[in-house]
């Protein structure tokens, strides 16, 4: 005899208010909604639940009838959306299945609240008996308390502040453990704005709630799963060593010969003097070396594996450059010969082959990578290499005049763009300045601490002017990818790379529109739907 099957047999992808049933038919259901405005990730969130007595036993005949009717009996349930819908209702909480068989609803309304990360945490949560059709109602209060959230800013040079929020980002199937993400919205909740960002939530850390029950009394402990320092990872921003060199222009050396009615003056070019104030001063930068912008282990997501362990999704970024800005070679040759009449001082140029310039070739090479990892395994990676060579001549005999050509090559994910640009005399003296731009093709912005905090919107520049901006795309609590926003002229186009989910990844990449940001991962079956232009969620 098969076990009686009852519960919710209507399982599948919920899109457009219709469950896509396995027999090809649909069934109306309410689509999950956001809690925070324009946080689309909350519409695709999923949480797996499984009671200790879950099970399905169906005969071949029953299975055939189920298939024909579009029913799927499973030994689990999915809480759909951040409001955690179950059986067509907003459960607004998860279910803790105690070892004694009792089930308790843990309301998230008491947990997903604004917090001050520098203050102790103390949240009273009223549990209510769940899933019994007989017996008296029962409630009990547990307190989620933790004195130190370990949220001190790892680098005060860019303080993320203490105002943050809590959200439930994962639970174990029996509900005995939950991961709470401490986050700040990428677009601030206040003041209200219509803006949104595909990353939605910027994590600052994670707490883990563990529930236990002894003689029917439930207790809760809270621990730090990831401190702020662990969440931020580490950064290394290193600049090369640029020194300022200078030289002083010397007057040409004059040799005068008395030729009777006139003088013959010979003016011979003199090299720049290292010191002195006999003439105008020229200065320029020299040096170079290794430049570095490295972000390691910026954690974007934390979730449970099927075995109950923790799994990290992180961003690693590396931009390194090697620059050589050598001292110029000076050439000071030739002379001017002129006759100066004794009677009236008239000057006649006889010859002038003076030539005085500084010349050098500055070179730089860059390597860049932006990597999404899950449990240390690379899920997606954007790579770029760039090189720049600038042969340049700066004329001393005509101050400010520069002849230079800039040769650039940038390759991003195999796409190469080159440029050879003849620089006119208006080309900034930056070529000789003390602060040459040796990271022209990667725009990170800010300090290392700020870079760690943001970990988003890293822009690569092609010489043509086209840019590619990289940012994490948070489809849901358990589905994350890298979005590439290519901005060419006035047009934007988007590509979504492989996505990470608990225990695996979806290796495909797809062109997507700006609003194709909806996705959802099915923790029961492992199925993934993403890049949808309308909200999707598994039920």
């Amino acid at each position, binding site marked *: 005899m098969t*076990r*009686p*099957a*009852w*519960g*919710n*047999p209507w399982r599948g992808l919920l899109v457009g208010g219709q469950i896509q049933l396995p027999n090809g038919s649909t069934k109306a259901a309410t689509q999950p909604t956001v809690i925070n405005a324009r946080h689309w990730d909350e519409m695709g969130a999923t949480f797996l*639940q*499984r*009671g*200790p*007595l*879950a*099970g*399905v036993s169906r005969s071949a005949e029953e299975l055939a009838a189920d298939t024909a009717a579009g029913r799927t*009996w*499973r*030994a*689990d*349930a999915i809480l759909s959306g951040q409001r955690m819908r*179950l059986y067509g209702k907003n459960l607004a909480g998860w*279910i803790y*299945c105690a070892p004694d*068989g009792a*089930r308790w609803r843990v309301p998230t309304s008491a947990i997903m609240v604004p917090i001050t990360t520098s203050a102790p945490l103390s949240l009273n949560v009223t549990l209510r008996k*769940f*899933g*019994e*059709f*007989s017996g008296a109602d029962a409630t009990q209060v547990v307190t989620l308390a933790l004195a130190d959230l370990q949220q001190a800013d790892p680098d005060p040079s860019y303080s993320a502040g203490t105002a943050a929020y809590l959200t439930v980002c994962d639970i174990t199937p029996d509900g005995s453990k939950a991961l709470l993400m401490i986050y700040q919205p990428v677009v601030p909740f206040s003041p209200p704005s219509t803006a949104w960002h595909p990353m939605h939530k910027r994590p600052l850390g994670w707490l883990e709630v563990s529930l236990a029950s002894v003689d029917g009394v439930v207790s809760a402990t809270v621990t730090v799963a990831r401190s702020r320092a662990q969440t931020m990872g580490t950064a290394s921003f290193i600049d090369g060593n640029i020194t300022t060199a200078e030289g002083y222009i010397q007057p040409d050396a004059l040799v005068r010969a008395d030729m009777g009615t006139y003088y013959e003056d010979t003016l011979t070019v003199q090299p720049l003097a290292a010191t002195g104030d006999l003439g105008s001063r020229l200065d320029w930068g020299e040096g170079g070396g290794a430049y570095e912008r490295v972000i390691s282990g910026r954690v974007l997501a934390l979730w449970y594996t099927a075995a109950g362990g923790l799994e990290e999704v992180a961003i690693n970024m590396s931009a390194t450059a090697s620059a050589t800005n050598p001292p110029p070679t000076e050439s000071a040759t030739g002379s001017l010969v002129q006759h100066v009449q004794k009677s009236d001082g008239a000057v006649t140029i006889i010859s002038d082959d003076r030539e005085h310039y500084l010349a050098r070739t500055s070179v730089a090479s860059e390597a860049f990578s932006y990597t999404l990892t899950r449990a240390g395994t690379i899920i997606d990676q954007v790579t770029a290499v760039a090189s720049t060579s600038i042969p340049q001549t700066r004329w001393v005999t005509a101050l400010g005049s520069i002849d230079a050509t800039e040769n650039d090559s940038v390759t991003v994910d195999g796409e190469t763009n080159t440029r050879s640009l003849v620089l006119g005399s208006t080309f900034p003296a930056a070529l000789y300045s003390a602060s040459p731009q040796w990271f022209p093709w990667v725009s990170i912005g800010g300090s290392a601490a700020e870079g760690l905090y943001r970990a988003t919107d890293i822009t690569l520049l092609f010489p043509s002017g086209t840019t590619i901006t990289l940012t994490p795309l948070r489809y849901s609590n358990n589905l994350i990818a890298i979005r590439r926003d290519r901005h060419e002229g006035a047009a934007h186009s988007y590509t979504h790379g492989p996505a990470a989910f608990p225990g695996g990844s979806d290796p495909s990449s797809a062109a997507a529109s700006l609003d194709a940001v909806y996705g959802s991962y099915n923790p029961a079956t492992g199925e993934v739907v993403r890049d949808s232009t309308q909200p999707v969620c598994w039920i």
Partner: protein
Amino acid sequence: MATLEQQRRANGERIQNERRANGERIEAERRAIGNRMVEERTGKSVADDLNRLTTPQQQRRSLPTVPTVGAVPAGKGRGEYVPKAATTAGIASPISEPDYTARAWWPGGIPSTDGLLMLPAAKTIVMSDANGAEVMFEYAEPTP
């Protein structure tokens, strides 16, 4: 107060009834004595007493009759429906539950396939039949 004649008549009827009753008692005693004398003469009472002290011999039985080989001739039968008696022995219908709260439940129940919900499963239900006798229904424990 009864007249003298009425008193004489009543005394006459009482004497007549007493005489009739005495005659019937004497006749019954004589009949009993006669029956006892017949049993003693035939030895019936002695044989009964002896039989109580001895194991009766097994009676010989004759072999069953073998029916004749061949078709049984057709015949007609007739019967009349007789409703079952309301009570002779066992449970008398109808049975009813006098007290819902007397039900006992299994500590578990019938779980939903996801294990999150539980339907209650009765363990015992006390019923009462039409005669007021208690009838106990005992159900098996659901095994998920």
